[in-house]
């Protein structure tokens, strides 16, 4: 991810292709990895993120399923307890709610409630797919719910390289992981280095742009928005320190807080709702950690309004924060003027 809008070229990798590379990397090296979920043999359920994996690795390792989110998620969990590393795919996170018992009650607690003796090495991949007048049940971003649950790692890649490398790290991790990718990022391009094997336990926020005046934080698509906003604010003389959270549970924002201690200003952009959300959590941790004297202004949350997603395009345009609206919010909130800047 770069501050300028990336342009495609022959050697670059798109976010969607990067996910597919992650699957292929895993399945060619790890016979215990398999994928299970609805639409995996279909050209249109998961965009270009799993194209022809069934042909490359066989339909015994890429299982398309009945319309049964709970059973398929539970089945992945059960196979994980028996030595496999399954990835269960929910092409829309909205439908994954039918499997919440398996994710929250079973997978997330299995290790703790059974005395630390075994944990399901299962990756649950959920796709955020919104906009385009898809309406209230085809649009949600529910990462904050799941980040609330101890025992479940929640991963939100913002760049093609992370989409691939954090998928690999999620699957090779010994804990249940909810990996959330975003269809609005699928066409983003990056000249990516070859796949890297990361230990998910050590992964956390990364600084994507260095700045002095404002700490700007996001995850997944919101991190990309943050970079675009930073670019615009730079033109107005405001220098942003941009952080991509990458892993939202367990959440480690020490580096972000250190950034706020330097800038004195914090804006968290989140694609979820405001109440009890990720933006509130990051802001609260910063507020708890820093003395009042460290703050030059109160923190700002930019989130969805607390309303279900509308269908009409006219309302959608108001519902989702975009670069323009975020720039307006930031300048209004911080009252940033040339002489305020360090």
């Amino acid at each position, binding site marked *: 991810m770069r501050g300028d809008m990336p342009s495609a070229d022959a050697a670059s990798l798109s976010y969607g292709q990067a996910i597919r590379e992650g699957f292929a990397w895993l399945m060619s090296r790890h016979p215990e990895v398999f994928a299970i979920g609805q639409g995996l043999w279909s050209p249109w359920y998961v965009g270009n993120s799993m194209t022809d994996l069934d042909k490359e690795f066989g339909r015994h390792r890429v299982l398309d399923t009945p319309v049964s989110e709970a059973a398929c998620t539970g089945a992945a969990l059960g196979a994980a*307890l028996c030595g496999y590393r399954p990835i269960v795919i929910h092409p829309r996170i909205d439908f994954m709610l039918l499997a919440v018992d398996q994710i929250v009650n079973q997978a997330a607690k299995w*290790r703790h*409630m059974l005395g630390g003796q075994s944990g399901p090495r299962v990756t649950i991949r959920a796709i955020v797919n919104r906009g385009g007048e898809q309406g209230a049940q085809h649009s949600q971003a529910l990462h904050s719910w799941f980040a609330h649950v101890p025992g479940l790692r929640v991963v939100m890649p913002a760049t093609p390289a992370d989409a691939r490398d954090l998928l690999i790290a999620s699957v090779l991790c010994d804990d249940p992981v909810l990996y959330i990718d975003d269809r609005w990022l699928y066409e983003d391009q990056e000249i990516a280095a070859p796949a890297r094997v990361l230990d998910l336990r050590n992964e956390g926020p990364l600084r994507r742009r260095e700045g002095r005046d404002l700490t700007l934080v996001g995850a997944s698509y919101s991190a990309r928005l943050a970079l675009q906003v930073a670019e615009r604010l730079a033109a107005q003389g405001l220098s942003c320190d941009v952080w991509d959270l990458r892993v939202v549970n367990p959440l480690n924002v020490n580096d972000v807080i250190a950034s706020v201690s330097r800038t004195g200003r914090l804006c968290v952009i989140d694609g979820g709702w405001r109440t009890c959300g990720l933006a509130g959590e990051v802001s609260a941790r910063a507020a708890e950690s820093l003395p009042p004297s460290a703050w030059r202004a109160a923190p700002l949350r930019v989130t969805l309004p607390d309303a279900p997603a509308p269908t009409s395009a006219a309302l959608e345009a108001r519902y989702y924060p975009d670069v323009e609206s975020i720039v307006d919010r930031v300048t209004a909130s911080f009252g940033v003027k040339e002489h305020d800047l360090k």
Partner: protein
Amino acid sequence: MSERHISELGELVDPGAPAYLRPCDISGYPPAELMGFLRTMLLIRAAEEQVAEWVEQGRAHCPCHLSIGQEAVATGVAATLRASDRLFGNHRSHAHYLAARGELYALLAEVLGRAHGCSQGMGGSMHLRSAACGFFGSVPIVAGTIPIAVGAGLAAKMDGGTDIAVAFFGDGACEEGVLHESLNLASIYGLPVLFVCENNQYSSHLDIALRQPSDRMSRYADAHRVRAQIVDGNDVTAIARIAGSLVDAARSNREPVFLEAITYRWRGHVGPNEDLDVGVRRSMQHLAAWKRRDPVRRLEEALRAAGLATPPQLAQLHDELRAQVHEAAARALSAPWPAESTLLDYVYAR
């Protein structure tokens, strides 16, 4: 009783029916195996009587769901399994764990929340595990482990061997949607899973007649083209025989099978009392009638009639198992508590 309810199980749910009061048919079983059945059932009963006493004494505090009266189901099914099979239980799983040869002391320590428990004291009565026995885990969310067992069956099929997965659940779990998803998935994928439905005719408090239009749970298996058999759940040899044929089919054909065992719990849904709940039929008379269908008595009478055990020998066996439980219980009571660090240590893999 709902006017929509019909009974398809007939005399199987009539505790006075003479056919189901008779001693077990022990023909074809070696004496050692029969004595093993009896030992397992007596161990379960003695262990649960101990747990019941602890609850009454205020020594055990976690919710304890007892299977006294239902011991034959776990015992008969477990006799057909091997240690490499993958078993999953529910809220009422002391019997499943013990029948699978889970360690008695570790069960009792777990019920007390002690560090020597089978789940290191982190789970209590409702979260049991014994990896060595293939008992992968039990949880109290109704039907929660059914799809997990299906996944264990998927893994067994991918492994290419002849191991199977087993899910123990009750009639209440048949009212959860995920049972249907799981039966469908296991059926269409051809997975070696034994679904064991212990139909004790009650959910936590409601009679089956107030909850479902029929009392026959195997109709759900029929709907998904899963081979099913109904068995008298208080007859351990009948259970072992029928479960054995189903398990053979699951192993050799790689297909799901469904065993419905008709039984009755003597205690309440949770805790030691002989609760009557809110049933339309459950009364002291009804409970007393079902106690005459005692699975332990029916096996013992068969053993006596065949000259395989005398009353003094049986009394001695009861005493021996009670002593075993008392010894383990005394040790469990002095076992250490979990270290405070375990509160956070077990959240994620180390």
